Structure formats: C-alpha cells, structure tokens
C-alpha cells in the first residue's frame, strides 16, 4: 500500500488508463522515448490485459513472407476485407493508415518479446492474413508487461479510473479508486485505453434492451466503460453506434464472463436449430460457420429468453472441433426434448418436418454442398441431412458479447476530440476508439491491429508532447 501512495503522489509524464495491448504498446513507446510512465490497470494482476488476454492473432498487411505469414496480403485486399464486414461503416483514411502501419508493427512486436507460431490446427486458412501469438494473447500481454517493466514503466493493479479531470482543452489528472480510496494522479499527458462497456450489463440493457441481461460476455468483466462514459459526459466526440455490440453464438452453458475461445460451438451448420418453442427460425446451412457465427449471435438474441438449441444426430458428432461442453444426449427426440425442457411433441414434429424435406444428394461437410431442403420454411440450404440416427445430441446456444462499438473519436494521431476541438494532451487507443474503423461487424485479428497501431502512435505522440 505504501507503494500505491508513493506512486499515486508522484508527478508523471504520462499516465495510461487501461492495461491491455493498446495501453502496453503506448507505455513501451513512451518509455523508450524517455517518458516516465504509469499504467493504471483496473483488473487484479491475474486478470490483467483486458480482452487482449483472450485474443490469439494479429491481422497484418505484408508483401512477401513476414514472420509466420506467407505470401502477400496487400492494402487493397485488406481494405476490401474490412469493407465487406463493416458494409462501409469505416473511416477510410484512418483505416488505410492503420492497415499500412500494421506491416511495421509485426517486427516491432517481435522486438518487444512477442513470439509467433504457425497457424493453429484448424485455422490454416488464416496463415496468410493473421499472425498467431505463441501461447495466445495472455502470453503477448505478459511479454509486454515484462518489456514495459524493463523500461521502468510502473503499474498499479486494481486501480479503477473514475474520472478524467479536464480544464479547457487540457486534462490535468485522473481520479482513481485504489483499495477503496479515491486519489488524484497527476500527469502531463494521458492515454485512455481502457476498452468498451460490454462488461457493464446494465449499460448493455439500457442500450440494447432488457434481453441483454441474458447475454454472456466472452471477455473481461473489467471493461465497464467508466472512462468512456466519463469522457462522453464531458463532451468528447464519439463514434460508433451506441446501441450495438458485436455478439456471436456460443455454448449456452459458458461462464457469464471470460469464457473466451473455448465456449465457441461449431456444430450449427450440421444441425437443426430450434428456439424455446421447438421452432426453427433461420437457415442453419447458409454459409460456412466462420462466416455465420456473428449473425447467429443476433439471431439467438432475438429468440424468446435469448436461447436456442442446436440438434444433431450420431452421424454429425465427429464433424466439428470438439466443444468444451459435453453434448446433451438421448436415444430418442422426445427424450432429448425432456432433457432440454422443450415441448416434446413440437420438437418431434419440427424434426419430422425437416427430415421429410431433406433430399438425396452428396453431403460434404468441408464445403458448401448445396444439399438443401425442399418446401421448408425457413429452408436449410446446405448440409441438410435428416436427423435420424440415434443417439441424438444437443448443445444450447446463447449470444456471447465480444465488444461494443461506441468509442471516442480520434484523429490519425490518436488524439481525442473534445467539445472545443482536439484535446492538447489526451490520446486514445484500442477498443475504446476502434469504432472509428470498425463501425460494424468484425474482422478476425483486426482488434489487435487497431490496438497496436494506435497504441504505439498514442505513446509516441504523448512522449513527444512531454519531451
């Protein structure tokens, strides 16, 4: 605690709110330029790193082989991919700058202790676009904390930033709650990198509606958007739809928070999905799962009690990556319905109707096989094979929130804009400003790209400001 008092009362060059990838990149850049830097991480040490803990790769532009990346992934293709997922909801200049800068980030990451590994089993399709971290995001976070520590950066854990003290166009201090005591920590420049608000269920419920209370949060419970809200209340400019979050369909038995990657469920394309009323509601075979899991987050969110059940038979149990939760199994459909607490007759009728509409043809689990139902609404347009071979298996599905889109508006130097124009000494990076570039949808590994690029810029700019 003496350490806390001493650190809190020092005069810092730069204080950083947040302790994830973007915050750490900023801290390292600033400390390498001679600045005296303090990181305020809201989580306790085992949970440090925000959502970066759960990440696994970094999307990166490159020409020719770079680190673990093969061939070429150029700006045009990268930007096209971004346009496709965001449907144009992006700031082109900012996005292109981010994409271009990503190339020099990968060697920088390696130089600061991040290790990469070849694409993980089952993700070979990404070996050209995404560089995977050895050990995942927590290993990256550990490497950055060590690099920062070696540069003299100090860290306070369980330090919750409550308020940014601003006078005119300058921030003067942060109000920080540490161990139940609120302290003012002063600095000459500030980097805000404390994430979105998806950990605050009440806020989600206000924005999205009461049904959000049934959502699961895939990442850290510590991203409650306190700093974001405080800045918006003080008139900082915002970007991103304040009502929207990115949600995917995950196993309904996942922990309320922090379930991360293992809660994903890949069986939907080979299944029939029903809601609480044992009714189908969407084409399960519309496309391959990586292109559909986000849509299913919203689809399930729209169902009664925000839950659905994916049902397969014995022939499909070995077709997808293992789920961490064992399936609910039964010898007959009514028995399965009883275990799931679904109306048995209705479920039997739904499955029977589906089975009757399946047509003969070749089933190819690894590609769009065109094996579609006939005369069924909604249709299943691929992998439509009768659910008929016992045992039958079911997995429950719920929406799992990954991040929120609302953020601080920044310019290409990561500077935050206030009511009277850009602040003189406030920068932002990471999920907290990602809505500028990612206004809708998601592109795997791009959150880490935004965090790294803008985190580094914020650190460089803040260091230049205090130099």
């Amino acid at each position: 605690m003496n350490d806390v008092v001493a650190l809190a009362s020092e005069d810092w060059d730069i204080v950083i709110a947040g302790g994830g990838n973007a915050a750490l990149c900023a801290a390292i850049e600033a400390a390498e330029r001679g600045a005296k830097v303090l990181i305020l991480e809201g989580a306790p040490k085992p949970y440090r790193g925000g959502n970066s803990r759960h990440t696994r790769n970094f999307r990166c532009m490159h020409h020719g082989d770079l680190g673990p990346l093969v061939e070429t992934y150029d700006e045009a293709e990268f930007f096209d991919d971004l346009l496709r997922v965001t449907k144009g909801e992006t700031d082109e200049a900012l996005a292109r700058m981010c994409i271009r800068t990503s190339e020099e980030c990968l060697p920088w990451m390696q130089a600061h202790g991040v290790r990469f590994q070849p694409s993980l089993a089952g993700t070979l399709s990404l070996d050209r676009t995404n560089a995977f971290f050895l050990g995942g995001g927590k290993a990256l976070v550990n490497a950055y904390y060590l690099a920062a520590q070696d540069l003299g950066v100090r860290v306070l854990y369980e330090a919750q930033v409550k308020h940014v003290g601003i006078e005119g166009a300058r921030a003067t201090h942060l109000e920080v709650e540490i161990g139940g005591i609120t302290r003012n920590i002063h600095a000459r420049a500030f980097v805000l990198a404390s994430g979105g608000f998806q950990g605050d269920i009440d806020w989600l419920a206000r924005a999205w509606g009461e049904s959000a209370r049934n959502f699961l949060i895939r990442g850290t419970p510590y991203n409650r958007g306190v700093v974001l809200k405080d800045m918006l209340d003080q008139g900082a400019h915002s970007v991103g739809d304040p009502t929207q979050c990115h949600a995917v369909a995950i196993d309904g038995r996942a922990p309320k928070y922090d379930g991360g990657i293992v809660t994903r469920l890949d069986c939907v394309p080979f299944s029939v999905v029903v809601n609480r009323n044992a009714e189908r509601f969407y084409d399960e075979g519309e496309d391959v799962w990586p292109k559909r899991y986000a849509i299913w987050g919203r689809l399930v969110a729209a169902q009664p009690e925000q839950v659905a059940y994916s049902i397969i038979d014995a022939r499909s149990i070995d077709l997808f990556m293992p789920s961490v939760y064992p399936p609910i199994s039964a010898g007959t459909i009514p028995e399965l319905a009883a275990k799931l607490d679904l109306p048995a007759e209705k479920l039997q009728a739904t499955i029977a109707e589906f089975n009757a509409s399946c047509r003969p043809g070749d089933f190819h689990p690894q590609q769009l096989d065109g094996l579609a139902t006939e005369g069924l609404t909604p249709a299943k347009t691929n992998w439509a094979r009768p659910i008929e071979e016992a045992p039958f298996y079911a997995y429950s599905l719920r929406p799992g929130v990954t991040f929120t889109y609302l953020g601080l508006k920044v310019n290409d130097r990561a500077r935050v804009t206030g009511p009277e124009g850009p602040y003189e000494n406030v920068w932002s990076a990471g999920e907290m400003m990602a809505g500028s570039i990612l206004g809708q949808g998601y592109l795997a590994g791009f959150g880490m790209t935004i965090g790294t690029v803008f985190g580094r810029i914020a650190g460089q700019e803040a260091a230049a400001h205090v130099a």
Partner: protein
Amino acid sequence: MSLDVTLQTDPGAISSDPVEEARRQIEICNACRYCEGFCSVFPAITRQKVFTDGDITQLANLCHNCRGCYYACQYTAPHEFDLNLPAALASARAESWERFAWPGGLADVFQRKGTALAAALVVGCAMMFMAVAALPGEGEGFYAYLGHTAMVLIFLPAFLLPLAAIVVGLRRYWAETGGTTVTMADLHDAAKSAATLKNLDGGQGQGCNFEVEERFSDERRMAHQAVMWGFLMCFASTASATILHYVFATPAPYGFFSVPKLLGVPGGILLTLGCAGLLVLKGKADPALGTPKRASGEWAFVWLLGFVALSGLLLYALRESVLTGPLLALHLGSVLTFFLLTPYSKMAHGFYRFAALVREAQDRRAS
C-alpha cells in the same frame, strides 16, 4: 463417425481424481489450442477429440513440466475453470508411476516421503560399512577394502532386479497407452528429443518458465542436461571398467588417463553441478505448479543423486587416505540405495518419459 462423448467431462467439474482432473483440463486445452507451439503435448492433444485413461497417461508422461502453458493460460485461477495443466499432468504422471511400479506400494512410499528415501540411504550406507568391515579385501585400490567378488555379488542383483522391475512397469505403460511395435525410426525420434530436451526449449529455443514465472530461461534445461549427460557418462565409466576387467583382464584401479576415469570424473562433476543447479531452480520455482504431494520425495531424490556423484568424486580425490574406507562405504551405500530405488523414486521418470517420447513418435507418424 462414432465418437464416445460419454468420455467428455463438464469443464466446471473440478475432480480430485488425478486422471479425471487431467482429462477435464485437457478437454479445455483442446477447445482453445493457443499453446500448440510450446511442446509436444498440445499437438498430441489436437489429434483427438475425446481422451481415454490411456491417452491421459501418455499425455501426462509426455509433459516435461516447462510451465509455458500455465503462464500463457487465460483460464488459470481465479478463473472458474481453474486450469493448472502442469500440476494436473504432474499429478496424473506421478500417479501412473505408482500404479505401474512392481511390486506395488513401494513407489507410493518413496515418491511421497523424502524421509523414507533418507532412511533407505542410511540403511544402505550402514550395510556397506558392515560389508567393508566384515568382508575381506583382495587386491589394490578400493578392492583392498571390499573385494571384487563381494562387489559383484552385491551390485549385480542390485542392478538387475530393479531393471527387471522397470521392464514390468514399462510393459504396463505400453499396454495402457496402446503402444505398437517399436521401430528404429521411433527410437531415433525419441532419442533426438530426449538428447536435446526439445520439450524444455519453449518451442522456439527460448527455454521454459520453470523458475522465472512469465520470463523464459534455459537454466533448467542446462541443469537437466548436466544431470542426464553426467549420469550417462558415469554409467559409461562403470560399464567401460567392467569391460576392461573382464575382456581385457585389466582390473581397477585406473589412472586418470584411462577410459573409466576420463568418463567418470567429468561425468561426476557434471552430475554434481547439475543436481546442485536443479535444487537451486526447484527452490525458486512455484511448488503449486509441480507434482502435488510428491515434493518431499522429489527433493530427496535430487539430493541422493547429487550425493552419489559428490561422494564418488571425493572418493577419487581422497584415494589412498585415511578417509578412503569410510568414503567408499558412503559412496557404495548411496549407489546401492539409488539402484534399488530406481523403479520407485523420481528416477523412474527417465524411463517413462522416454517411453512416452517413443509412443509420441508412433502417434505422430500414424496421424
């Protein structure tokens, strides 16, 4: 297409049974796969979707306790999944050695109780003191204290009986893990991995996280290499002396520039330093990531091995002095204890680890 999903566990159901608990954690790892690049365990996990008891035994014995996965893991406590794969696999591993040991029960005692190991050492040394005192010497050097015939009569069974017990244990291991006929290629792969301690290099040569938490260090690999190569050199030294004795009719003592001494002296130094290094590193490492309930037996074993090496070196350094007799009894007593306890102490890990590497080579080739 059939998959026995009844083998799957609930990820939230923490078990006190070592195999069940290892299975629970391995299933979570298989759904995550972020650690694939650290060692052989994770690629082996991804080859399967459900895990039999034999699979768990194999994965547990393949793990070298480098701890890279623990420090990189997003699901360690206080997360409700409470992953600690190094400890879970260590627990299943130690339990498997106790299960395979023949005769049963002995490994339970000597793996868990350092005091039992120390007591065995005292008894072993006392017996050798008595042997030196009671039996006639015959010839030069150490043989003046204890004759060659007596040494052979004591150490031949003390070497062969434990070896027979190890063979029984390894056969049980092979049956449980579904091993097939061993080929030269399997042995080659396993020997290469063992010789370089590939599974302690962190996957990219940066080393492991044994004693420095999130940082990487190669010190444990270096210390273990010193122990392993030092031990093998000492063993080769004894073997070469046996050959000199029987084939070339050249009995001990040997001068410094002889094969037994040129192997034995550096080997003994390496083994002593390596054991000292392992003890220092073990003191720094977090015991919560090690083998639950076996710490005292593990500490005692490294001390015993170090004592074997150090007493051997001292015996050579202080030869033809008043201390030769007592030192000979201490050294031979520690060697006797070490040999007899090989199937029931941490020493067994060398055999099972090698078997796991052979098994892994087979599995990798079959996939």
